[in-house]
C-alpha cells in the first residue's frame, strides 16, 4: 500500500482475464453436459412419450369407432390420459435440462465478457497512469469521484437507442433469416462503451482502501457518505419503477375473473348468455335468467383470465383446457428462489460483518477449512451470494420455459404483466451479479476490511432491495 490507496499493478487484472476464461469453460461444460448431453437423452424420452401417446390415442379412437365395450373404452381412455401426462412430464423434463444448459452458457458468456474484457482493458493500461494524485483516491486529496458512471450511462443510452433494430437483427440471425449486421452497430457500440466505462470504474476503485471517502457537507445528508446517500436515492427511484408494474398489475387484476374470483362467487364473474338479444345469467342448475337478485350460489361463474399462479399453485383455475395442473413441483422453483434470495441477503450481511470485524477468528471444523483467513471468508461469502443469485436466474428461466410450454405466454394481459415484472426483477438480479463479480475480484486481490468494507455495504443495500421487491412479487404473481 502507498499512502491513501493500495498499490495495485495493472497486471493483477490478468487474474480477471483468467477468471473470464474459467467462466467460459464452466459455461461450455454446463451446456455440453446439461444442454446437449442430458437434454438429448431427455429429448429421446420425450419423442418416445409422444409416440406412446399417439398410439394410446389411436387405440382409444379405434375402440370407440368399432363399438368396443364401455369398460374397454374407459380403460383405454385412462391409458390415453396417462400417456398424455407422461408426454407433458417428458417435455418439461427436456425443457428443464435444455434451458438450464443454455442459461448457464449465456450467463457465463456475459460474466466472461464483463470480467474478462474489463480485466484485459485494465491489464494493458500503463501503470503510471494509475497514480494521478488528482484522481480517484489520491494520497493527499479528497475522494474526487469518478467520470466512469457518465461514460457507462452514455453506453447504456446508445445501447437502448439501437435496441429495436439490434433485437430484430439478433432474432433474424438466431432463426436463420438474412440479417443486416449494420443493425447491430449502434447497440454494439453502446455495449463497448459500457464495458470500457465499467472497466475504468473498476480500475479506479480497486486501490481504494477507505481513505478520503467523500462526505456530504450540506443538508439533508450532512456528514453522511455521498455514495451511500446516492445509493438510497437510486433505490428510491427503483421503488417507483416496481410500483408502476405493481399498480398496472393491480389495475388489470381487479378486472379479471380469475379462479380465485370464481371460487369466491364474485358477481362480476357470472356467466352470461344472449337470449333474444338480451343478456341473461346462466344458472348453475341449468337454464338462464334475467334476474340478478338470486342467491350467489344459484348462478354459474366463469373464468376469463388465467394468471401465472393458476399454472403454478395447486387448485389453480382452468380455462380452455389450460392451467389447473399446478402442484408442489410447479411451485417449487419460485419457492426455492425465494429462499435463495433470503439466504443470499444473509450471506452478504455475513460478508460485510466479516470485513468489518476487528477481532475476527477463523471458525472451527469444516467452515474453518472454507474460511481460513478473514480475507478468504469475505470472498467466500460473496461467492456464496453470487452462486445463489445465479441459481435464481437459472430456476427462473426454467420456470418460464415450463410456463410457456403449458400455454402461459406473453400474448395475454396476465402473461404480459407477469413476464415484464418478473423479467425486470430478474434483470436487476443479473445486474447485481455482474457487480458482484467485481466485488469478488476485489475481495480476492486488494481485499475488504474495516475501512473499505462500505463497498460491500452499498452493494448490499441494492441486493436487499432486490430481495425486498421479490417479497412483493412472489406472493402477488406466484401465490395469489
Amino acid at each position: 500500500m502507498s499512502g491513501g490507496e493500495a498499490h495495485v499493478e495493472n497486471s493483477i487484472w490478468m487474474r480477471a482475464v483468467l477468471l473470464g476464461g474459467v467462466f467460459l469453460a464452466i459455461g461450455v461444460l454446463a451446456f455440453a453436459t446439461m444442454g446437449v448431453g442430458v437434454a438429448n437423452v431427455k429429448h429421446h424420452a420425450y419423442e418416445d412419450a409422444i409416440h406412446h401417446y399417439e398410439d394410446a390415442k389411436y387405440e382409444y379412437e379405434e375402440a370407440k369407432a368399432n363399438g368396443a365395450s364401455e369398460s374397454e373404452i374407459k380403460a383405454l381412455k385412462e391409458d390415453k390420459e396417462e400417456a398424455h401426462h407422461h408426454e407433458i412430464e417428458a417435455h418439461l423434463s427436456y425443457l428443464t435440462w435444455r434451458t438450464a444448459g443454455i442459461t448457464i452458457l449465456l450467463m457465463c458468456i456475459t460474466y466472461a465478457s464483463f470480467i474478462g474484457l474489463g480485466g484485459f482493458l485494465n491489464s494493458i493500461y500503463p501503470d503510471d497512469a494509475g497514480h494521478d494524485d488528482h484522481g480517484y483516491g489520491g494520497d493527499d486529496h479528497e475522494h474526487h469521484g469518478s467520470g466512469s458512471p457518465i461514460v457507462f450511462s452514455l453506453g447504456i443510452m446508445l445501447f437502448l437507442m439501437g435496441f429495436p433494430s439490434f433485437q430484430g437483427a439478433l432474432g433474424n440471425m438466431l432463426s436463420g433469416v438474412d440479417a443486416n449486421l449494420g443493425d447491430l452497430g449502434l447497440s454494439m457500440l453502446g455495449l463497448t462503451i459500457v464495458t470500457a466505462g465499467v472497466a475504468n470504474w473498476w480500475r479506479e476503485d480497486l486501490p481504494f482502501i477507505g481513505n478520503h471517502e467523500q462526505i456530504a457537507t450540506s443538508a439533508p445528508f450532512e456528514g453522511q457518505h455521498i455514495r451511500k446517500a446516492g445509493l438510497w436515492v437510486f433505490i428510491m427511484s427503483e421503488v417507483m419503477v416496481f410500483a408502476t408494474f405493481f399498480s398496472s398489475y393491480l389495475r388489470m387484476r381487479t378486472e379479471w375473473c380469475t379462479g380465485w374470483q370464481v371460487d369466491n362467487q364474485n358477481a362480476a364473474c357470472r356467466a352470461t348468455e344472449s337470449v333474444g338479444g338480451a343478456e341473461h345469467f346462466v344458472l348453475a342448475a341449468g337454464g338462464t335468467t334475467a334476474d340478478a337478485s338470486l342467491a350467489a350460489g344459484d348462478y354459474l361463474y366463469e373464468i376469463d383470465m388465467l394468471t401465472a399462479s393458476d399454472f403454478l399453485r395447486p387448485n389453480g383455475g382452468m380455462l380452455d383446457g389450460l392451467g389447473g395442473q399446478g402442484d408442489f413441483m410447479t411451485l417449487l422453483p419460485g419457492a426455492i428462489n425465494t429462499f435463495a434470495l433470503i439466504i443470499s441477503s444473509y450471506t452478504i450481511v455475513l460478508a460485510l460483518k466479516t470485513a468489518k470485524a476487528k477481532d475476527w477468528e477463523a471458525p472451527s471444523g469444516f467452515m474453518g477449512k472454507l474460511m481460513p483467513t478473514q480475507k478468504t471468508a469475505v470472498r467466500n461469502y460473496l461467492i456464496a451470494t453470487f452462486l445463489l443469485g445465479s441459481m435464481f436466474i437459472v430456476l427462473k428461466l426454467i420456470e418460464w420455459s415450463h410456463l410457456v410450454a403449458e400455454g402461459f405466454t406473453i400474448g395475454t394481459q396476465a402473461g404480459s404483466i407477469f413476464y415484464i415484472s418478473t423479467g425486470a426483477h430478474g434483470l436487476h438480479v443479473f445486474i447485481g451479479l455482474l457487480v458482484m463479480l467485481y466485488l469478488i475480484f476485489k475481495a480476492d486481490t486488494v481485499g475488504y476490511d474495516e475501512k473499505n468494507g462500505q463497498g460491500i455495504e452499498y452493494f448490499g443495500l441494492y441486493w436487499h432491495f432486490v430481495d425486498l421487491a421479490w417479497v412483493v412479487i412472489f406472493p402477488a404473481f406466484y401465490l395469489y
Partner: protein
Amino acid sequence: MGEHETTGILESIVEKLPGGYDIYFWNFVILMFFTLFEVAAVFFETIPGTDIEITLYAVWAILIGVGVIKGYGIAAYFMHLKGDPRIYTRTALFPVLFVLLMLWGIGLSNPGSVQALPDWCTPNWEFASQR
C-alpha cells in the same frame, strides 16, 4: 447494514436467546419461517390436521401480513434503517406517497381499466384549442 449496533425491544430479546447469535441471524430465521408460512397458506386448502378451510380472505391476510413482516425485517435490519440516521428512513419513505397514489389512482380507482388508460392520459386537445 451489519456494522452498527442497534437498540430496541427485539434486540434485547435476541441478546437473551441461547447460542449467542445476533439480530441478523434471527432476522434471517424469521424471514425463512414466514416464507414457508406464506407458501403453506397457498399450498393447503385447509389448515393441516383440521377441516378448517383457508379462505380467500385468509390468504389475503396472510400474504399481506407476511409481506409487511418480511419487508420490515429486510429494511430495518438487513438494510439497517434501524441503526442508520433518520434521513435514510425518510429517503426510503419519500416514494411512498407516489406509490400510494399509483396504487390508488391507477390500481384501484379507474373504472375504465386498462382500455381507458390511454384516454385518461391524453390531454383534452379540443378544449385546449377552443380556449
